[in-house]
C-alpha cells in the first residue's frame, strides 16, 4: 500500500513538474519592433517568445492590402518570417497564430512601416500612370469646357451656327473617352493595380465609390447631352439641352476635387459650380469665334456683340467665384510660393491675368474693329488663338492639382474624428479616433461609469483586431492625460480599411476590470 502511494506521489509530482512547461507563450519582443517605421524594407521579421513555439498560421498583409505568402520557421524561442522583397511603402501587418508548448494557440499581430505609416503621406505618384491620369483629366476638361461650352455657344449665341462644330464635337468625344479612362485610371491608382487590372471590375467599382464617381458620371451625361444637341434637334431643343449640359459642367466640378470638399461647403460648392459654368461659357466661345474670324463670317459682329455683353459680367463672376476658393484652399499668402499647390495656383493666376489682358484687348480693340468692318478679323483671330493656347495651359495646370493636396489640408485637417459610444450597464466609454481612417490614428478614451460619472481606472488598454482580414489582436497601453483626465493612445497604425474590433479594458481595481467592445469602421 505504502509503495503504491509512494508511486502515486511520484507520478503526481512528475505531473506537477511537467505542468511547469504548460505555459502559454507570450511575445516578448520583435525585430523590427512593433509600430516601428523603417527607412528600408527589412528582409525578415523575428518574433521572440518566452518559450519555444510552433508557428501555425503566419500572415502578412502588405501596405497595399494584399495578403502575401510568407515562409515562417521556428528557431528556438523565435519565429523567423521571411518577407517578400517587393513590399510597398507604408504599414505592413504581421499576424501570427502560434502553438505554445501546452498545445494552446496564442495569437496576436504586430505592425511595422516602411518609409511612413500608411495614410500619413500619400505615396509619391510618378511614372506613366500619373501622366495618364493627368492627360485624362485634361481630356475631361476639354470635353466639358470646349465641348459642352461650344455646344452651348452654338445654340444660344451662334443661333445654330456650325462654325467650330468640329472642334466642339471632337472635344466632346475626347472628353467622353477621357472621363471613362479617368475612372479606370483612378481605380488602378487607388488599388495599386497594374494596367491589366482594367479588365476586372475592381478598379472601376473602387473609383465609382469615390467622389470622382458621381463627378465623372455627371460629366459623361453632360457631354453626351451636348453631343446630341449638335445632332440638330431644332434650335429650341438644342437650347434646352445645352443649358442642361452646361449646368452639368458646374455640377460635375462641384461634386469632386479638393476645392469642392473644402469647408465651408455652402461657399465652396456653389463657387465651384459658378466658376465651372462661367469657364465653360467663355472657353466654349473661343473655338467658334476663331473659326468665324478665320472664315470672315458676316454674322461675326452680331455674335461678338452678344458674347461680349455677357462676357464682362461673366469675368467678374469668374474672379468672384475663384477668389474665395483660392483663399480657402491656400490658408496663407506664403503658401502661394512655398507649396506645390500654391505654385500651381500662382502659375494659373499668371496665365489667367494674361488671358484677361487678351480679353480686354478683344473687347476694346478687336471687337470694335470687327463690328466696324466684319472683314477686319486679323487682330481678333490672333488674340482668340492666343487665348486658346493660354486656356490649354491653364487646363493643364489645373489638372495637375489632382496630385497636390492644398495647403488647407495640411494646416487644418478637415476630417472629423470618428466618435464611438459604447454603453453597457457597467460602464460607458466614449472613444474618439482621429482621423478615423487608414493610417496613424490617435485614440482618446473617456471612461465613465454606467451613470455617466467619471470612472477612475488604474490602467486602460486598447485591443484592436480585424477578423475579416485575419488580423489577430494588437494591444496598446493607454496613458492618462495629465490635464484632461482622458486616456490616450497615440499613433496607432490602422493599416487596412474594414470593420475593426475594438476592445477596451479598464482596470478599475487590482482585481477588477471593465471590458467593453465595439466595432470600429475604418475607411
Amino acid at each position, binding site marked *: *500500500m505504502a509503495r503504491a502511494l509512494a508511486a502515486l506521489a511520484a507520478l503526481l509530482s512528475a505531473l*506537477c513538474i511537467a*505542468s511547469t512547461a504548460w*505555459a502559454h507563450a*507570450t511575445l*516578448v519582443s520583435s525585430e523590427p519592433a512593433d509600430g516601428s517605421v523603417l527607412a528600408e524594407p527589412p528582409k525578415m521579421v523575428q518574433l521572440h517568445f*518566452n518559450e519555444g513555439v510552433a508557428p501555425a498560421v503566419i500572415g502578412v498583409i502588405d501596405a497595399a492590402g494584399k495578403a502575401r505568402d510568407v515562409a515562417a520557421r521556428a528557431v528556438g524561442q523565435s519565429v523567423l518570417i521571411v518577407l517578400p522583397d517587393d513590399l510597398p511603402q507604408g504599414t505592413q501587418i504581421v499576424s501570427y497564430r502560434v502553438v505554445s508548448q501546452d498545445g494552446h494557440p496564442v495569437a496576436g499581430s504586430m505592425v511595422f512601416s516602411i518609409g511612413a505609416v500608411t495614410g500619413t503621406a500619400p505615396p509619391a505618384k510618378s511614372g506613366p500612370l500619373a501622366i495618364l491620369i493627368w492627360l485624362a483629366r485634361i481630356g475631361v476638361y476639354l470635353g466639358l469646357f470646349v465641348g459642352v461650352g461650344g455646344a452651348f455657344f452654338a445654340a444660344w449665341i451662334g443661333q445654330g451656327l456650325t462654325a467650330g462644330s468640329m472642334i466642339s464635337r471632337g472635344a466632346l468625344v475626347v472628353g467622353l473617352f477621357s472621363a471613362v479612362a479617368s475612372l479606370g485610371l483612378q481605380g488602378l491608382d487607388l488599388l495599386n493595380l497594374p494596367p491589366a487590372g482594367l479588365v476586372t471590375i475592381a478598379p472601376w467599382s473602387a473609383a465609382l465609390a469615390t467622389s470622382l464617381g458621381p463627378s465623372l458620371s455627371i460629366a459623361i451625361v453632360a457631354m453626351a447631352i451636348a453631343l446630341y444637341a449638335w445632332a440638330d434637334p431644332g434650335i429650341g431643343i438644342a437650347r434646352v439641352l445645352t443649358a442642361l449640359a452646361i449646368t452639368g459642367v458646374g455640377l460635375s466640378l462641384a461634386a469632386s476635387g479638393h476645392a469642392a470638399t473644402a469647408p465651408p461647403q455652402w461657399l465652396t460648392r456653389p463657387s465651384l459650380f459658378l466658376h465651372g459654368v462661367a469657364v465653360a461659357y467663355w472657353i466654349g466661345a473661343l473655338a467658334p469665334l476663331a473659326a468665324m474670324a478665320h472664315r470672315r463670317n458676316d454674322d461675326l459682329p452680331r455674335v461678338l456683340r452678344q458674347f461680349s455683353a455677357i462676357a464682362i459680367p461673366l469675368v467678374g463672376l469668374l474672379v468672384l467665384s475663384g477668389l474665395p476658393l483660392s483663399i480657402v484652399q491656400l490658408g496663407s499668402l506664403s503658401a502661394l510660393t512655398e507649396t506645390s499647390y500654391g505654385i500651381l495656383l500662382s502659375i494659373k493666376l499668371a496665365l489667367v491675368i494674361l488671358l484677361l489682358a487678351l480679353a480686354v484687348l478683344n473687347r476694346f480693340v478687336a471687337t470694335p474693329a470687327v463690328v466696324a468692318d466684319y472683314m477686319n478679323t486679323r487682330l481678333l483671330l490672333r488674340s482668340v488663338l492666343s487665348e486658346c493656347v493660354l486656356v490649354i495651359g491653364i487646363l493643364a495646370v489645373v489638372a495637375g492639382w489632382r496630385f497636390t493636396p492644398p495647403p488647407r489640408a495640411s494646416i487644418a485637417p478637415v476630417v472629423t474624428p470618428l466618435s464611438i459610444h459604447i454603453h453597457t450597464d457597467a460602464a460607458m466609454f466614449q472613444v474618439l479616433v482621429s482621423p478615423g481612417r487608414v493610417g496613424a490614428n490617435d485614440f482618446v478614451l473617456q471612461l465613465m461609469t454606467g451613470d455617466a460619472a467619471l470612472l477612475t481606472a488604474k490602467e486602460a488598454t486598447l485591443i484592436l483586431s480585424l477578423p475579416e482580414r485575419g488580423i489577430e489582436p494588437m494591444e496598446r497601453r493607454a496613458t492618462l492625460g495629465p490635464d484632461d483626465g482622458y486616456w490616450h493612445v497615440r499613433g496607432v497604425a490602422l493599416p487596412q480599411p474594414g470593420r475593426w474590433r475594438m476592445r477596451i479594458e479598464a482596470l478599475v481595481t487590482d*482585481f477588477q*476590470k471593465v471590458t467593453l467592445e465595439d466595432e470600429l469602421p475604418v475607411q
Partner: protein
Amino acid sequence: MSKLAPAVILLVAIATAPASAHVTLEKRQAAVGSYYKAVFAVPHGCAGSATIKLRVQIPEGVIGIKPMPKPGWTLEMVKGKYATEYELHGSKLSEGVKEVVWSGGKLADDNFDEFVFSSYLTQSLKPDTTLYFPVVQECEQGVSRWIDVPAEGQAGHGEGSKTPAPGLKLIAKP
C-alpha cells in the same frame, strides 16, 4: 485496493484536466456550507519573469480564511467589512479577510509552486454557479492579472480571455 480506488480516480481527474497555463485552483468543485481548502497552482511567471508576489481576492460569502504559512514568503491578510453578516460556529461575523498576500519570495519562471488557505463556503453562496477568486501575480518584471470573470449569463470564459480568474464550481451540500 479499495483504498487506492479514490486515488486512481483523482489521478485520472488530474490527467484529463485541461493542461493549464493559468493560475488555477487545484480542486475545482466544492459544496456550499462546507470547508474548502483552496490550493492555487502557479505554473509560471509573467512572460518569463520570476514571481515575487501573489495576491488573492476573497469573494463575498467566503469566510474563515486561514492561510498556510509558506517558508520564504511573508504572509499578509487584508481585512475588511463583509456585505452582510455571516454565522460561523454560532458567532456572527461582519468583517474578516478580504485579501491574502504572499510576498517577499521568489518563484522562478521554470518552477512551480502552490499557495494554500483554508476557508468556509457559506450557505449564502448559490449552488450551480461558479465562484471566482481573482488573483494578481506580481513579478520582477510585469504583472499578470488573473481576474477575468465572464459577463453575466455567459457560461465559461469568453474566447478572448487570456487571463481568466481561477474558478470554483459550487454544488449543493450533499
